[in-house]
């Protein structure tokens, strides 16, 4: 693996398998009386979150603590610090404090790349702008692997605002690396330019795609997208691209629904199905998220680079 985890494209199929295997073993730590191993004792992990995300931050924090690392939390709302000073000055400060790893979530695409230029520490991308969220993709793959024996030929549909979704980008990269068949479903306005070069199929018709899928990943649709005119109304979006009871029925029996959270009820997920889906989705996210992040921290901090 590379020194940093910035993009899902950084990971080979071997790397991904390694992460998922290690996560499976580390998942057992949670079941022990002493939910800790001493592996990263004396190391310091900093959660550098410029965007609110309690769930992801706590997940990383718990993962680091279960490996006996020390954790610093740095929350900086972008609006409260003047431009430029926030990231580089913060990087210099953290470098001086001697942290071993920085987990960064930032509203600007590419911020982790800039950070990596200014620090010696290992940098983990916990979500940058509308670009990537590689640890989310890994935890999504972990969840899929719990239910399906192989990624090879696994049919995964990613539905929703692909254009602005970092979860979508990272998942497309990781899934295609592992040999899955990905289909992107969205209105044309919410698909990126040249998306046909991404190695995934593209469709505007959710009903046509659904019955054949093993995994259906619903992306969150932010309300400001409607205000910006990407689709005429939330009602129209829900009608064409929302997951409701009828569409749930149309899915194969073995198929699963995933969602990176939090859900917009009545938009991408109809209220009547949200409850039943939400419980299992959240449970997966929380438990698997910690295991996958523990595995990542171990593999990134546990020693010099491994050539996969």
């Amino acid at each position: 693996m590379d020194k940093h985890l910035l993009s899902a494209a950084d990971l080979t199929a071997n790397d991904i398998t390694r992460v998922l295997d290690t996560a499976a073993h580390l998942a057992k730590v949670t079941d022990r009386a002493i939910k800790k191993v001493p592996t990263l004792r004396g190391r310091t992990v900093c959660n550098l979150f410029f965007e609110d995300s309690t769930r992801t931050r706590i997940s990383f924090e718990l993962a680091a603590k279960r490996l006996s690392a020390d954790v610093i939390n740095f929350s900086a709302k972008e609006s409260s610090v003047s431009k430029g000073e926030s990231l580089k000055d913060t990087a210099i400060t953290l470098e001086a404090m001697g942290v071993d790893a920085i987990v960064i979530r930032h509203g600007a695409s590419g911020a982790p790349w800039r950070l990596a230029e200014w620090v010696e520490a290992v940098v983990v991308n916990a979500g940058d702008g509308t670009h990537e969220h590689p640890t989310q993709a890994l935890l999504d793959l972990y969840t899929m692997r719990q239910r399906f024996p192989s990624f090879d030929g696994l049919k995964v549909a990613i539905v929703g605002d692909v254009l602005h979704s970092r979860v979508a980008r990272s998942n497309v990269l990781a899934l295609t690396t592992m040999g899955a068949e990905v289909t992107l479903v969205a209105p044309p306005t919410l698909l990126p330019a040249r998306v046909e070069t991404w190695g995934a199929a593209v469709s505007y018709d959710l009903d046509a795609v659904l019955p054949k899928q093993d995994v259906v990943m619903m992306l969150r649709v932010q309300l400001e997208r409607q205000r910006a005119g990407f689709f005429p109304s939330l009602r129209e979006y829900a009608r064409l691209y929302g997951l409701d009871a009828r569409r749930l029925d149309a899915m194969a029996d073995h198929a699963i629904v995933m969602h990176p959270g939090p859900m917009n009820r009545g938009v991408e997920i109809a209220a009547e199905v949200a409850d039943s889906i939400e419980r299992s989705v959240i449970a997966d996210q929380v438990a698997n998220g910690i295991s996958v992040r523990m595995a990542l921290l171990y593999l990134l901090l546990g020693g010099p680079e491994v050539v996969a």
Partner: protein
Amino acid sequence: MSGPQLVLDAADVGRALVRIAHEIVERNKGTDGLVVVGIHTRGVPLARRLAAKLGEIEGRQVPAGALDVAMYRDDIGMRPPQATHDTELPFDLAGRVVVLVDDVLYTGRTVRAALDALTDFGRPRAIQLAVLVDRGHRELPLRADYVGKNLPTAPDQAVRVQLAETDGSDGVVIEGPARKAVAS
């Protein structure tokens, strides 16, 4: 000639295990409250074999488990991260005598890690250590209670234990620069 040299064949390995099993029974006056835990990777099949042998000798089942010590190593950060394996300890450790099993005892650091790992799971009454091969060069004040074979070696040599479960056949092989290994 520094090619691999077979110092224990399959029959030797089998006999050593039988002897160790008897020593365990003798020292613990039976197998009451005994569990056998193998250290990944090759300690695990050895532990299972020992547990089976102990079961034969005393006529009652002895539980076996597996312990992964990757997370407890003292050289984290100095070498590439080691692969992890499953830890299975399907029993309560409290009040038990744990016989830790590994294939080769060398610097002692793996055993130290195993002791730490085990302690995180519970508090055994006692821990004893059984190894197929002791090759010397301890870096920590640890010793084995039961040894299949003492094998003095030079640090630039490698000792490889092969087991039917992992390698197809049983045997112990020494490899390394031109020195004759002196078998005691």
